């Protein structure tokens, strides 16, 4: 059902009639007809296999999480140390209570270091600003538990138990401070050895339809090398789905 354009896209379903009517449409007499409303019921009423509470459901989402929890590295809190995620999710419904999710996403994780805290090398002192970051491709698998037995074609409320991981395609350590001969000195080190190449962890997500609260715990070390204190392993953030 729909307007002319929508219905015109559905003509190919009329396998036999299409040829004849297409010929008619080419004739001057048929062209003069103005179709005000058109619907192909057979096509319009095909049950969908995809949807928020169907067998398959895919959607995009954006997430933002703050680094929280204890850390010996002395990182700045709040937006200075956080992770931004842009990704897509494919959900496979397993029944009224369970579903499996597979995510693929880009994640940008950054920890900004507090300049007033002494720390061992390779992180130097005397900078006004220093941070290190990871540009990652992450995969995530999660098991979704939905507490309600029955609902319509909506995602509803859910609890996800998740595990994620992925390579850091690019890592950066950057500092900024006064130069030795005046002015300002900005130093950027790309892919330094002490930043980990792989990150991964586990977490939990509690959501209602397109909004979710996410907590993650990083199991892998973000810094390579003995004796280096770890940045915060916990993240707490928000995800908003686009559907």
């Amino acid at each position, binding site marked *: 059902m729909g307007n002319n354009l929508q219905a015109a896209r559905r003509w190919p379903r009329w396998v*036999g009639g299409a040829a004849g009517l297409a010929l008619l449409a080419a004739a001057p007499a048929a062209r003069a007809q103005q179709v005000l*409303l058109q619907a192909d019921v057979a096509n319009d009423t095909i049950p969908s296999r995809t949807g928020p509470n169907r067998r398959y459901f895919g959607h995009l989402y954006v997430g933002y999480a703050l680094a929280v929890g204890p850390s010996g590295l002395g990182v700045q809190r709040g937006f200075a140390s956080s992770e931004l995620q842009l990704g897509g999710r494919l959900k496979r419904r397993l029944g009224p209570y369970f579903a499996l999710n597979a995510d693929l996403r880009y994640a940008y994780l950054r920890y900004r270091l507090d300049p007033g805290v002494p720390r061992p090398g390779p992180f130097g002192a005397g900078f006004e600003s220093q941070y290190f970051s990871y540009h990652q491709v992450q995969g995530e698998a999660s098991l979704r538990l939905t507490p309600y037995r029955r609902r319509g074609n909506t995602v509803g409320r859910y609890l996800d138990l998740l595990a994620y991981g992925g390579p850091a395609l690019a890592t950066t350590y950057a500092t900024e401070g006064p130069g030795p001969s005046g002015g300002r000195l900005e130093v950027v080190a790309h892919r330094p050895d002490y930043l980990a190449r792989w990150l991964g962890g586990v977490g939990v997500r509690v959501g209602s339809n397109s909004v979710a609260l996410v907590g993650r715990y990083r199991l892998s070390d973000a810094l390579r090398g003995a004796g280096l204190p770890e940045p915060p392993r916990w993240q707490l953030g928000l995800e908003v789905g686009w559907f």
Partner: protein
Amino acid sequence: MGLGLLASPAQGQALAAGGGVVARPLPRRAAPPAARYWVRFRDKRGVAFEAARYFSPAAQARRRRQGLPAADLADRPVRPDYVAAVQARVDTLTLVSRWFNAVACRATPAQAAALCQLPGVAEVVAWPVASHLLPARRQIVDQQNSNEKGAASQAAVTPADYLLARQQTATLGRPALSRAGLLGQGVRIAVFDVGFRGVERHPAFQPLLREGRLAATYDFLKNQPAVFRGGAHGTEVLGCLAGRLPGPAGPGPDSLRLGPALGLAPAATYLLARTEGLASERYTEEEAWLRAVEWADQQGADIISSSLAYTEQRYFPEQMDGRHSLIGRAATLAARKGMLVVSAAGNDGDDDWVRIGTPADADSVLAVGGLDPATGLHLAFSSVGPSADRRLKPDVSAFGIVLTCTAAGGFERMEGTSFAAPLVAGLAACAQQASGGKLSAMELFRRVREAGELYPYYDYAHGYGRPEAGRLLARLQGSLPAVAPTFDFVVHDSLVAVVLRPAATLPLAQPLPLVAESDELAPGTADWLAPPTPARPPGTPTATAPNVAPVGQEHPAPVGEAPALPLSPAYPARLYWHLADARGVLHRYEVRATTQRLVVQVPRRLARAGNVLRVYYQGYTGQYGE
């Protein structure tokens, strides 16, 4: 929220008065989370029941008129010992339904399992509900502000809006009803909605209040009689049934007798029930609807106007068959009890859902779609059929863009199938009045469908089209005269062509402008109308909001240039055609403008094996099949 209220003893008493529902406080104990269950009983043996005491005089009179028994088994109350046994074993009872001989309750799985062992329990099934209920949005309108807004809104009624107000009833045959003196007198219409804020103050409803035609009200969410609160959607819907524009002497209660009516049943008696919450879609609303429909039956309602549709928050499109939802089954039972349920089809025609919602999917419910006043054709946002089991839905159509009353005391142009439904409910009320109240619900249902402009042609966008009172009244008095054919099927080798007859291509006779009715404003007395605004050419489809809100939550129509409506409700002649199979299920349908005599050609093989090509043009329906 609803459950919290049910748990309070004082409100439990109110429940008993309103719907026979009892409740008791939730005990504090550590237990698995309670879920909602539906407990159906086996029998009603030994239950004392006096129909004369339970039913109001109006309800008894309606049953007598329709030839229905004074009461049947479904009217008897649920056995108190069964109810008490369940109540003693569960956390909360939320609903006791005599029609379904069942209760809804909140219980743990262990409690539910124990219920199965009780004598008299036929089945215990999980009943879906959201456990974290959100409070309904409370909207308190300051009296002074509302009066000021009302004055402003009233002044904002433009000539185009005034014309729309006249057209929305004229297209359904208001002149014929006026001539027959049919204004819904003596018919009881129950309106179920989200709230009726401002009805008690709105000048348009003062005749209703002054003449005592507001028979009863009840809020089935809050369990109290007050319904002039909550949302204003009910006010807008009621405006399309009983609202009136100001009369010639200007605003004021005494002038309203002569004000043009916005609906077709301004003289009917009304029952107002609040069954719908504002904040979220909850299954408790369906329970409230069931309680309300049993209450309406008790109060003697003839017609129920229900402008709500539940869709994807609770159901899948393939469940829209009238049997999956509680509200659909309740509506079917209402028809068996002699009440015609008129329901909005839904506002999902241009979103992913597309289909009608429930209870419009029930086969006994008159589902009403929306028409564009500017073109007389289906509005894009109006939900389409068929039902999931391929029955025709919507049944009929009426204007989906209307002028109606607002909670602020004024008038506003609104869009949504919520407003098409009460327009048709008003027509049904007049038909019931014309029959002396003797038509059964399904007979009335059939009469309204047969009064459709397109009948016996139909499609899944318009149903049988716009019902018209003249046809309806004529059919009540006998059959309509046969219509002369307006086209022919011309059969070629492989095609069948539809060719208009020359006489049918002549311009249609245009009725005179509708200025002769008693409540029509004379030009000199309509000085309160705002100056005219630029209008788009007649026949231009009306631009609607990108996404019309779901039924029950509609907003005012987008502000912009109003479409220029034709002075009379006549639209250019269009040719409708569809291909149907032997069961009447449509495969395809179209509406075409007629700019030449050869309008459509269809391969003949599509009209074989029981399939038929059916065509409607200017009142005549013909079909071709091989």
